[in-house]
């Protein structure tokens, strides 16, 4: 294709991407460099249904001029990125200086909101992604071996976890794992521990969230693998059978290598999806034990009466950076494979 033709061909999607992806990111980045203006505080007497009280309020007259001259706020550079709510350089340095061993240093670092969120986000991503791939493949192989008559209904049922809205799905499970819920009560009987509660300890909360993540995402990898299985060349499989390969050997040496590109694709999608884990934390009310990067953005924007736009923007930029770092190895691999193929 000529370069000129190619340019015209790609122009609509390119402009849509600039408009809906690139520009918002630039705007969020600009926002992250600013904080609110210094507020002029005065002490006034406030009265209400419960009497009068001296209170501190903002002097509107004095701050209005400031706001009008610079509506974006006060330029703060990268100071928001390095404050305690984000990369916390000062706190990390202090922790390194004052702690006497790696474990005390780590516990001090994990006490900082950003690093605590990163820890859970990474754990979630790296636990859930492989399980989703393995479980999805297993279910796809199982369904593919079913007789034709019950295939359709089985596929439909297997897809249900993905069809349920994540927030609703996690809320339903949250009620089910309650000590009086179906799953919670059953677990108490199975483990013979009347005090067992999946909501109480951080470890069990993490495990619950991981299990939810696998349950929710496995249908995605299942359906991709199932589609892939339909295109496995039957003559190769039959040749393997004639050579005396067992079902396991056929899967290991024919089917899995054939579907390797799909594994890359699912890994890519799952890494991105799981890195921005959010709904289960809200649905399971798990924020005491597990927070993610997306959750702290939510908390900045929705936690209180006033929003911290600069802080939320900085976390968003750091999340994008995190996704980029995470995807680089997979993308490099894809690029090599692409180049290896004869054109």
């Amino acid at each position: 294709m000529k370069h000129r033709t190619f340019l015209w061909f790609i122009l609509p999607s390119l402009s849509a991407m600039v408009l809906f992806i690139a520009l918002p990111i630039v705007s969020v980045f600009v926002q992250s460099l600013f904080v609110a203006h210094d507020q002029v505080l005065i002490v006034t007497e406030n009265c209400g249904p419960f009497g009068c009280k001296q209170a501190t309020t903002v002097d509107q007259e004095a701050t209005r001029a400031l706001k009008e001259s610079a509506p974006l706020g006060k330029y703060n550079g990268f100071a928001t990125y390095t404050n305690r709510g984000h990369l916390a350089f000062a706190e990390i340095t202090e922790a390194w200086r004052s702690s006497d061993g790696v474990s005390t240093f780590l516990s001090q670092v994990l006490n900082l909101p950003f690093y605590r969120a990163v820890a859970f986000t990474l754990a979630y991503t790296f636990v859930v992604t492989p399980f989703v791939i393995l479980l999805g493949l297993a279910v796809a192989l199982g369904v593919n071996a079913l007789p034709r008559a019950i295939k359709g209904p089985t596929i439909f049922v297997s897809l249900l976890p993905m069809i349920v809205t994540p927030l609703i799905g996690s809320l339903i499970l949250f009620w089910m794992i309650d000590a009086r819920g179906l799953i919670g009560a059953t677990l108490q009987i199975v483990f013979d521990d009347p005090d067992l509660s999946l909501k109480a300890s951080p470890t069990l909360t993490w495990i619950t969230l991981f299990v939810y993540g696998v349950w929710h995402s496995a249908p995605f990898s299942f359906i991709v693998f199932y589609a892939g299985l339909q295109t496995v060349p039957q003559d190769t499989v039959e040749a393997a059978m004639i050579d005396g390969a067992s079902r396991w050997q056929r899967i290991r040496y024919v089917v899995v290598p054939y579907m390797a590109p799909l594994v890359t694709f699912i890994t890519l999608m799952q890494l991105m999806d799981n890195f921005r884990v959010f709904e289960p934390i809200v649905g399971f009310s798990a924020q005491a034990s597990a927070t993610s990067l997306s959750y702290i953005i939510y908390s900045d924007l929705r936690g209180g009466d006033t929003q911290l736009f600069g802080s939320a923007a900085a976390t968003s930029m750091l999340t994008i950076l995190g996704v980029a770092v995470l995807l680089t190895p997979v993308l490099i691999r894809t690029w090599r494979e692409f180049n290896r193929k004869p054109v």
Partner: protein
Amino acid sequence: MFLKKIALVGAVSALMASTAYAGCGLTSGSVRILSNDFPALHAVAAGAEACAGGGVEVSKNQTTEHKDLQVAALTSNPAQYTTAVVANSSIVPLLNGDLIRPLDDLVAKHGQGLQKTQLVTIDGKVMAIAFMANAQHLWVRDDILAKAGVSAPTTYEEVLAASKAIRDAGIMEYPFAMNTKSGWNLGEEFVNMYMGTGADMFVPGTAEVAINNDHGVATLNMLKSLMEYSNPDFLTFDSNATQALWEGGELAIANMWGSRGGAVLDDEGSTEEVTSNTRLIGAPTWGNGSTPASTLWWDGFTISKNISDEDAEATFVAMLNGISTEMVKANNDKAVWLIDGYMPGRAAEGISATASAGAPPYPMMPFMGALHTALGNELSDFLQGKESAEQALADVEAAYNAAAKEQGYLK
């Protein structure tokens, strides 16, 4: 038959419109209400909507997301809503943004029926009209307390003793609960408990936080002692969860919102045994203090700044019609009204006892929201036993300082 019904509906609505017209005395203007979404506010909005007709338009958006809509909606000119119904925390962003107008002229012209206590004044100017009150206070089950041989507690020390007695008697393993879900609810419990010490949360006249001290440590330790008697799931308990536990008869003593009283004491969702033995009493004191460990909340309406005087007046009159004595008489048990004509019922006893014992109002400071968020996010580690009280308070202070700097309150 169908036509007859239509005619009847038409006649009724025409009648309602004409009486409303006569009642509100408005000829023109647009009333646009933004408020939270619960039955008491539905009644208020319905009262305001009765003023529609004859050139007056009334529309409403009642949503639990109101706090996140209000600043952007009132910043536009003209404002998207002519009134925002707020509480003492959610009025703060509107004041900070200079988005609501003083109401002194409208009060002088139309507000003869208002009680003086309903006027919320900031620096001498009326900025909101309060119409209902709320607070967290103790709820007790008289039958269970009697079975355990203890009387209704008036201090948190007595709450601990009573909970122990109930546990030792083998009646309940976890007789106590409060709204301790990590986040806003947990922050609110700390603020309530800290108020019982009588100490200030900020250095007066500044935005510097003053909770990292002996009062703060004592507050945290009291919360932790109480959690010994609360279900281990306590960090997931919000109002809906504690109400369900109460209605399920699984609690004997709880610290819950008074506004839930109507819903618990009605004949739905619970048993006769629970509702007839439930009593709402005042918030307790603790540590030999005399201030109840609770904060008082009001709900009230404000009028947007970026609207015409005509709309402002129409809105004010319509909202007054929404909080009229007739509305209160028809909806007496839906809230603790601050309006003339209100007859306090069983569900109001806790709030009025808490208010008359001198509980302070929730601090209406511009930087209070930042501290509340910091408390809600940083205290769960301490309650889970993962860090010391001193460390938790240091974390709160550091998180608050970072947020307050970003909002421009601290240099």
